[in-house]
């Protein structure tokens, strides 16, 4: 009888532990909408400068730099150097904060010898101060992959995250810098893109 009770306690403790762990883990993923499946896997891609729709100084550039670095280190695709993209922007007279039109996107893709382009917009970037006096960074981004030859949208992604969401216990796990949060979010987005696009190409 005692042995049975012990087992029951053991299972109950295990169940509670699993529930806590599950509750603490982050279940929300970036919202990715796949609109057109690419005909073959993406080999080389160009990341175009992100638009900053926030009051955070250089918010667009910060997320752009972090996202590009994460994309390079992911080894999923080859990334066109930022300098080449900026050089074509200068030639086409696309000023900072401006987004290229369809014809300019086609020219950029062709000149950079890429089939796909990543466009992005930082919708929210701020460092909120919590009641405990900690910094809780918040980032919201909207990214798109478009076909540089046709101008068709391949996928649209929206991602929103707060540093607090990664807290495990006490202050452990909590992200308290915008750079780190941007890196984690970029990693999540790239991982999801890779999985979704591979699945879609395999299906076709």
């Amino acid at each position, binding site marked *: 009888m005692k042995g049975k009770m012990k087992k029951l306690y053991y299972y109950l403790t295990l169940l509670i532990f699993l529930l806590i762990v599950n509750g603490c883990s982050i279940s929300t993923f970036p919202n990715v909408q796949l609109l057109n499946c690419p005909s073959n896997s993406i080999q080389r891609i160009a990341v175009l400068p992100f638009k900053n729709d926030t009051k955070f*100084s*250089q918010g667009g*550039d*910060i997320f752009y*730099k*972090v996202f*590009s*670095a*994460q*994309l*390079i*280190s992911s080894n999923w695709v*080859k*990334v*066109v*150097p*930022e*300098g*080449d993209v*900026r*050089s074509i922007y200068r*030639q086409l007279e696309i000023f*900072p904060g401006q987004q290229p039109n369809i*014809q300019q996107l*086609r*020219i950029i*893709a*062709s*000149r*950079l*010898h890429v089939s796909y382009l990543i466009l992005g917009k930082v919708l929210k970037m701020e460092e909120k*101060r919590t009641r405990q*006096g*900690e*910094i809780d960074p918040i980032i919201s981004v909207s990214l798109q992959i478009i076909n540089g030859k046709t101008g068709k949208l391949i996928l649209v992604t929206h991602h929103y995250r707060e540093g607090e969401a990664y807290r495990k216990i006490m*202050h452990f796990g*909590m992200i*308290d*810098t*915008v*750079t*780190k949060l*941007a*890196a984690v979010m*970029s990693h999540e987005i790239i991982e999801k893109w890779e999985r979704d696009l591979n699945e879609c190409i395999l299906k076709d």
Partner: protein
Amino acid sequence: MSMNKVKYTLVISIILTIFLPLTALAQSINKIAILPIQDLTHGANGVNFNCTRLLEKNLSKQGIIVINNKQVMASLVKHRIRWTGFLDSYNTYLLGQELKTDYILIGTICQYSNRIEPRVGMTLTLLNTKTSSSIWAWVGSLSIKDFIHPLGLFEPKNAAELLPLLVEKAVKNFPKRLEFTQNVCPNCSIRNVVVRPRFIRSGQDVTCIVRVNSLGHKIIPVFKLQINNTFIKLKLVSHNEYKAIFMGPIKQGCFPLYLIYRINNKTYRIYVGNLTVDNEAPKVRLIARGIHIWNAVALKRRLVILPRLNNPEPISRWQIAVCTLDGEKILSQDGPGPLPSRFFWRGQDASGAMVATGVYKIVLDIWDMAGNKAEASIRVAVIRTPPQIKVSSKITNNKLLLTVKNDTDIPLSFWRLEVFQGGNLLITEVGSKLPVIVKLSIPHKKFTRLFCIVTARDIFGNITKKKFTKTFINKNGKINSFKKTINSSGWTTEF
């Protein structure tokens, strides 16, 4: 036995063919150039030399030869590289050649703040100068919260103390050996492609200029421009410039332009934009809402003019002018680029003075991107004369009949008649249409002095105000008017 030998040889040769090139491309990093680290906290052009020095110091400790900072700066100046944090393929190749290194490290400080919680954030990218590609990247950040010690010892206090720790962390993650696929930089060769003009009329000349980066090609590259099925060869005009002047297509339409070039026995075809042939002037019209008078739209306080294109298309420039019917220009304005959504005219000329009563013409000229001109005009009536109000009086059966008339044909928006006697208001009449007859009883006194005010405003806002006094004498029960004074502006003096 001989068959086995053949098999073995075949298998070994296959293995060697597959793996030898890959192993050859795996390289250890022994020499590196570090470009000044960009600092976004000081704007897009900010530079952090302290971080650059820390990276140099830490990488040197790892046994990597770091090219002298002065040498790097001299190369940046020589090649007029005015920015940090990124580098284009051609400049990566050039710096690699000049500094005799296969690797260039670029980076950006994303965060550097001492506010509330000191924190720093950084990204680093390693470029290969032979392939002009990014081969490694790292993102890292540190905040004071990452160094909480139970006794509060050795904790960094500010961002300046955090930065060396972040650099140390970055260097720990720095690759010792890199494997990469060898590919010639595809977009190193072309520096710039210019096609002018992009919008033409049939048969107009078009210039195409291609500027190339001198990558030391032994074979001179061949450049051709493709429009539809026509190929135009570009001629070498200087050491790095190819040019062609050709007649544009006769047929109207939008033609994609492709640049075909052959470098190092490889042919590339790139899209360089569209060439639009347009012979038709855009159709434009002007819309102005208001009251129509004298076959024109009447100006009230201001006139809103809306230009509308029947088939919207890009506009290169526009000009709007206000002219008299004789063609004399009294006001004009022009501008480049898109057509404004609306224009306003307040009835003023170029000097700011109000124009006189009359009919004017507002003319809008627009030019499309190919230079085709279109014109639209609208007639505007300006009325500055106030309503001509006339008041006449008649006495019948001891009653005063006041007749108020408007001598102009411009409708009134309102009129108002007020009659006073010794400070007391006797009657107030309001209306919008004239003529009108107002009846008034005169008190039976020996002398009666009446004071009248008539105000009228026409539909264009012109106001007239008339004031007059009139004295009546009651002689044996019969009232006669004695004297009257009518003044159209200002108060009358006693008669």
